[in-house]
């Protein structure tokens, strides 16, 4: 073992390397432990935050996945619903009358009571009844069983979100209304099935009827348009810049600007779209088509950057091999480099689209936060998107929208997680070694 002289010591004392190392060993190990603890702490903190987020969403959102319904035997009174006046008629009166016949202590001639009874049912109930009768006018004069949503306060009551101990004047439901509901419960007329309306209905002013159908279809069209525009354009631009463009000041400038574009706040793209697409080109407001074009502006830089990185990662030996057997430049790029870069390109694209799916600000600026009660039938119809629908619901005063907002966020997160999972799957499946 070699002896070393400690440089800072003036004396003739000599120490072995092993002794010097041993002296510093404890300090080095301490630093390493500290680093590990800090790292672990950071990850734990991140997980804790994620857990709190998901837990709070689930705890308030799970109520929205069920909806309280009431099953009634409805006598369609020909006096209220005369055949010759269809589709008009007193369907609400028919429903109120059938409720009154079920409940005790109700006087069919007292208008205030009857109005309160009507408040038990969802506002949509009379329209469902009307639709059924219009479809089959023979029902007039018969008694049919109907299951319809109850209105939001009763839904809240059934889910335990209204405290019965609260003094009556601070409660949304009066004592007699709660008593009605308890009667109906006792008669097993109340059920709480899975809330298919959350997916199957479009937006509504009434929480018990509001659903995400319009937002889902709007988001689908917007993403579809975004993909169709940004994927080919982004890949084309990346291939040109990476493989064909001469390396000079101009291409440097282009590169810097693409990186800058990827960092531009999305609300700026929204303003641009408002001015250009809607202002100049006169495209319709609130349309998923315009939303998709706006999102494409944002997604394109992401796709270009991901594609260029993927192209760069293809080893030069593959290019040389192809050039060596006499492939032309485009044959090298399209026959060899692009297929090898595809997993990386797809991953980047899906992550870009997932980002676009959650983007809210530019869609607000082009009017995709309008209140629209029917699902769009094409990309040019007015629609909302998932994030803007969340924005609208979060802004609504009705109690029922609180849980619906959380539920919509969970749906959005579900789509995002699915898209990211697909991108990981594609990357693993098509990744090749060379």
């Amino acid at each position: 073992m070699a002896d070393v002289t400690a440089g800072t010591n003036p004396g003739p004392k000599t120490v072995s390397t092993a002794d010097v190392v041993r002296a510093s060993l404890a300090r080095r190990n301490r630093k390493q432990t500290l680093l590990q603890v800090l790292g672990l702490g950071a990850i734990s903190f991140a997980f804790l935050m994620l857990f709190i987020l998901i837990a709070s969403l689930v705890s308030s959102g799970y109520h929205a996945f069920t909806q309280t319904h009431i099953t009634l035997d409805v006598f369609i009174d020909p006096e209220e619903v005369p055949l010759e006046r269809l589709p008009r008629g007193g369907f609400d009166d028919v429903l109120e009358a059938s409720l009154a016949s079920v409940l005790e202590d109700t006087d069919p001639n007292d208008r205030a009571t009857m109005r309160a009874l009507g408040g038990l049912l969802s506002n949509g109930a009379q329209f469902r009844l009307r639709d059924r009768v219009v479809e089959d006018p023979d029902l007039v004069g018969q008694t049919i069983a109907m299951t319809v949503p109850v209105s939001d306060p009763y839904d809240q009551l059934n889910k335990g979100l209204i405290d019965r101990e609260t003094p009556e004047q601070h409660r949304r439901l009066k004592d007699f209304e709660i008593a009605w509901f308890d009667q109906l419960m006792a008669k097993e007329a109340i059920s709480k099935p899975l809330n298919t309306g959350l997916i199957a209905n479009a937006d509504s002013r009434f929480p018990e009827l509001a659903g995400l159908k319009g937002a889902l279809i709007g988001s689908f069209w917007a993403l579809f348009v975004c993909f169709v525009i940004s994927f080919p354009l982004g890949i084309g631009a990346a291939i040109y810049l990476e493989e064909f463009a001469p390396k000079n000041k101009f291409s440097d400038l282009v590169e810097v600007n693409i990186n800058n574009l990827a960092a531009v706040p999305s609300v700026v793209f929204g303003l641009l779209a408002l001015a250009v697409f809607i202002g100049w080109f006169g495209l319709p407001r609130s349309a998923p088509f315009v939303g998709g074009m706006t999102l494409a502006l944002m997604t394109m830089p992401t796709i270009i950057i991901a594609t260029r990185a993927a192209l760069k990662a293809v080893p030069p030996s593959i290019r040389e091999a192809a050039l060596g057997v006499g492939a032309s430049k485009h044959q090298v790029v399209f026959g060899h480099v692009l297929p090898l870069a595809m997993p990386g390109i797809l991953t980047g694209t899906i992550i870009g689209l997932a980002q676009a799916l959650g983007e809210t600000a530019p869609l607000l600026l082009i009017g995709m936060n309008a209140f629209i009660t029917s699902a769009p039938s094409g990309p040019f119809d007015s629609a909302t998107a998932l994030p803007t629908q969340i924005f609208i619901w979060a802004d609504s005063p009705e109690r029922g929208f609180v849980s619906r907002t959380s539920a919509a966020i969970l749906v959005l997160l579900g789509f995002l997680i699915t898209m990211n999972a697909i991108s990981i799957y594609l990357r693993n499946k098509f990744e090749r070694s060379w």
Partner: protein
Amino acid sequence: MMDGMRKIERDTAASDIKIQARSVQVFYGDTHAIKDVSVDILDKTVTAFIGPSGCGKSTFLRCLNRMNDTIDIARVQGDIHIDGDDIYDPSIDPVQLRAKVGMVFQKPNPFPKSIYDNIAYGPRIHGLARTKAELDEIVERSLRRGAIWDEVKDRLHEPGTGLSGGQQQRLCIARAVATEPEVLLMDEPCSALDPIATAQVEDLIDELRRNYSVVIVTHSMQQAARVSQKTAFFHLGNLVEYRETGQIFTNPEDARTESYITGRIG
């Protein structure tokens, strides 16, 4: 060491000039990589380029099929004629040239495709086969010339990247000959291979000499002595000496050549 000299005894006088280079200069940006190189490379002959690292032998090799075109900062001056045609003439497309001048690289670089598709790629893009049967025939003939047919004939549709290093390099040689080139350039083809695979590739190179003009860059003087008939010694971008292999190793004219082959520079 001179045990490997067996192949140089063969007759080389009858060959014609295949490649004629005159006053070739190559610049990488400001670096003058090749300085005024003039050389005649013969047909049906193995010509070895030797020299220390950075002497420009690979750079010069890559001039012969214009692979330097793919490097933005490289500039080539001077004349290179193959069969009397100026390969840097604007009317010559590098694609056309590279179909005629095949290349094998230092590191085996099969495409991440099947063995069959590796070989068939060149003939396909150049349209050399009209039918599937013709293509099959080209693939088999090329793999036989690459001395690898027997090892892969039962797994033509497995990926070429799954072969061993030596097999991959022979596959790359087979791929290079599949387009029926007239010149075969080899840039240190054995540097990534073990001695057994090296011996197989060297035997193959000697075999290829019957049909092609082979130019091989090598770091190994023993390899140059074993496989080549003519040897060119490069030093600092200059072509120092270019003679028959036997003469260059036994009786070098230039003091720098002697220093290199005796191990004093390099």
